[in-house]
């Protein structure tokens, strides 16, 4: 019998009941809650007269709707100008009060994007099963946890039963060996992976990321990679626990207490795939081959190295591919044969649960330091992932570097990643964005998103168009 994968181990350790029909009950250690996908779940509990199974397994923070401008933010929930957004954030506060769930409210210094706050606070830990009504819950897999997004009905189900009904996924290993060239980051790695396997390549799988490149990444970089597993179709991304993981968790506010620490670490050290584990699919890539990536279309798989040119649909043999390329180019206002570096930018967005951690902000600040945002760029936003990230960045003087260069320094939240607050792209605007989705309308009606790393976004802000950050001198 072959050994177990990391996913197999996490599944097995949380299996409450295996049923004959193939479904299983899986125990959930932590549920993260935000304001958008939870109100109907709380309402469901009330209507059915059910109480939460284990209240302190839940943790809430508002992030999608919160304003990021200081003036609007300073008024707390009551100060949110959009009445519909205000009601949604207020509803989360009310529900958490009524059900006695720990919530970091909008002006708590620990507030931020739920997928930044969870690991940063030790609310999410290695070896946990973690769910949230949000597809980017895959982020937490970077800690060696089984974490994935669920719908609102399942949010209610987990509240009421502490379990999920699941079918076991298949195992995929994406191994990136070798070393990354200077200027190439975790974001480029995950975009290159999505370019390789496609947006549906991981459907039905839990993807474990491994290899020398992944082992060499910081926790921030690992979270960036697992965050976008869902963009490759996989609900869950995973990375084995190692010293980097344990060092990261140590000292976090909700990390295991002293009397449990050694036992926890001993358990976490088992959280890796066995050498003889079986994977249903293995994808191998070399770090040396990866260049800075830029998406040119309306799906994350429509991605090219920065020295690439826009593809020509006329040259495509497959009719469906031709049609979707034509549609994407029309929406994006781009022509076949155009160089990626000729795409001009109107807006720059540095933030989101993909790239708003301290390392991301440092990378962007290093590029813009002593430079200015191009006159043709209308707006450049830097939105830290949490109040703690913001504090840290300010202590390092990064905020000053950004504002001196002409970028706006904002309050934490999801912001322009999905434009549920007032941070939106205008129709036709091109945006270099460190977020995760370039879908039509995602960042604003008619907006045109190009997904890139923080360093690439920062360089584009200064140049006014995409540049290869590896050899870029202004």
């Amino acid at each position, binding site marked *: 019998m072959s050994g177990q994968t990391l996913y197999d181990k996490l599944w097995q350790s949380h299996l*409450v*009941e295996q*049923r004959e*029909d*193939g*479904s299983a*009950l899986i*125990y959930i250690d932590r549920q993260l809650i935000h304001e*958008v*996908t939870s*109100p*109907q779940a709380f*309402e469901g509990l009330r209507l059915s007269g*059910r109480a939460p199974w284990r209240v*302190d397994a839940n943790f809430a923070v508002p992030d*999608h*709707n919160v304003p990021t401008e200081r003036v609007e933010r300073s008024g707390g929930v009551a100060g949110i100008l959009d009445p*519909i957004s205000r*009601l*949604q954030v207020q*509803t989360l506060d009310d529900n958490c009060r009524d059900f006695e769930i720990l919530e970091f409210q909008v002006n708590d210094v*620990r507030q931020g994007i739920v997928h930044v706050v969870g690991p940063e*606070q030790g609310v999410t*830990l290695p070896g*946990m099963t973690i769910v949230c009504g*949000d*597809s980017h819950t895959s982020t937490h897999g970077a800690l060696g946890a089984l974490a994935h*997004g*669920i*719908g*609102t*009905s399942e949010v209610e*189900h987990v509240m*009421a*039963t502490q*379990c999920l*009904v699941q*079918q076991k996924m298949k195992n995929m290993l994406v191994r990136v060996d070798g070393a990354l060239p200077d200027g190439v980051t975790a974001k480029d790695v995950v975009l290159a992976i999505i370019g390789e396997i496609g947006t*549906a390549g991981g*459907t039905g799988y839990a993807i474990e990321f491994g290899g020398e490149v992944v082992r060499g990444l910081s926790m921030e970089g690992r979270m960036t990679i697992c965050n976008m597993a869902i963009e490759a*179709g996989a*609900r869950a991304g995973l990375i084995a626990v190692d010293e980097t993981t344990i060092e990261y968790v140590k000292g976090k506010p*909700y990390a295991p*207490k002293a009397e*449990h*620490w050694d*036992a*926890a670490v001993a358990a976490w050290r088992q959280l890796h795939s066995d050498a003889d584990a079986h994977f249903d699919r293995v994808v191998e890539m070399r770090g040396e081959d990866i260049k800075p990536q830029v998406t040119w279309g309306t*799906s994350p798989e429509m991605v090219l190295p920065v020295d690439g040119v826009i593809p020509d649909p006329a040259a495509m043999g497959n009719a*469906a591919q031709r*049609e*979707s390329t034509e*549609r994407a180019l029309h929406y994006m206002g781009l022509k076949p044969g155009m160089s990626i570096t000729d795409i001009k930018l109107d807006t720059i967005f540095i933030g989101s649960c993909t790239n708003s951690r301290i390392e991301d902000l440092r990378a962007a600040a290093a590029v813009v330091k002593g430079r200015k945002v191009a006159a043709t760029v209308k707006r450049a936003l830097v939105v830290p992932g949490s109040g703690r990230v913001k504090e840290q960045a300010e202590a390092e003087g990064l905020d000053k570097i950004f504002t001196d260069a002409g970028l706006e320094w904002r309050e934490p939240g999801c912001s322009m990643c*999905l434009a549920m607050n007032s941070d939106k792209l205008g129709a036709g605007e091109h945006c270099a964005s460190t977020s995760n*989705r370039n*879908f*039509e*309308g*995602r960042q604003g*009606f008619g907006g045109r998103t190009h997904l890139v790393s923080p360093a690439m976004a920062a360089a584009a802000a200064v140049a006014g168009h995409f540049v290869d950050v590896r050899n870029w001198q202004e």
Partner: protein
Amino acid sequence: MKSFTVLKGIAAPMDRANVDTDLIIPKQFLKSIKRSGFGPNLFDEMRYLDQGEPGQDCSGRPINKDFPLNQSRYQGACVLLARENFGCGSSREHAPWALDDYGFRCIIAPSFADIFYNNCFKNGILPIVLDEAVVDRLFQEMYATEGYELSIDLAKQVVQTPSGESIGFEVDAFRKHCLINGLDDIALTLESADAITAFEQKWRKQSPWLFDVIGNAS
């Protein structure tokens, strides 16, 4: 939950691959704290020529006449024919809520994104996976025949075309059982409450740090 047993009705096309949940229901409508009322904003950015806002009366908005759901031949459709990777992107259950509110009870595609697929079953919607070539043929037949209707029988796991052709499909046993009987799966899971409690006690002993109370102390 609504049960799903048999369905017969007009099929309408969503003829593009990788339809994401932002296309199915744009984010501004996710600000609602209700489960219902999303139907008028289903496929909002393709269906209307202007930008939709929550709470707006959609009856006076300029419509995109080329969009199938705006054409008379597809009015009253309850089956949606779609292409591969339908429902990719976010986990928003507002996507199946919007499809259901509009009147769709069944979606047929060569493949679905995982979270969306699962969310459909929680809302009485049956997502059916058929071979790509078969879906393509259904598209051609539908385009060629105004009033093209499909019949779906979940118990028999069969889709029937107007010509009488029967196409079998797979669905896992547990989901089928819940859908046919319109079961509340929370109530079903709570039948295993003793097993959950037993697991929890064992797990707490083994991994006590996972049960540390997270409070506001920090």
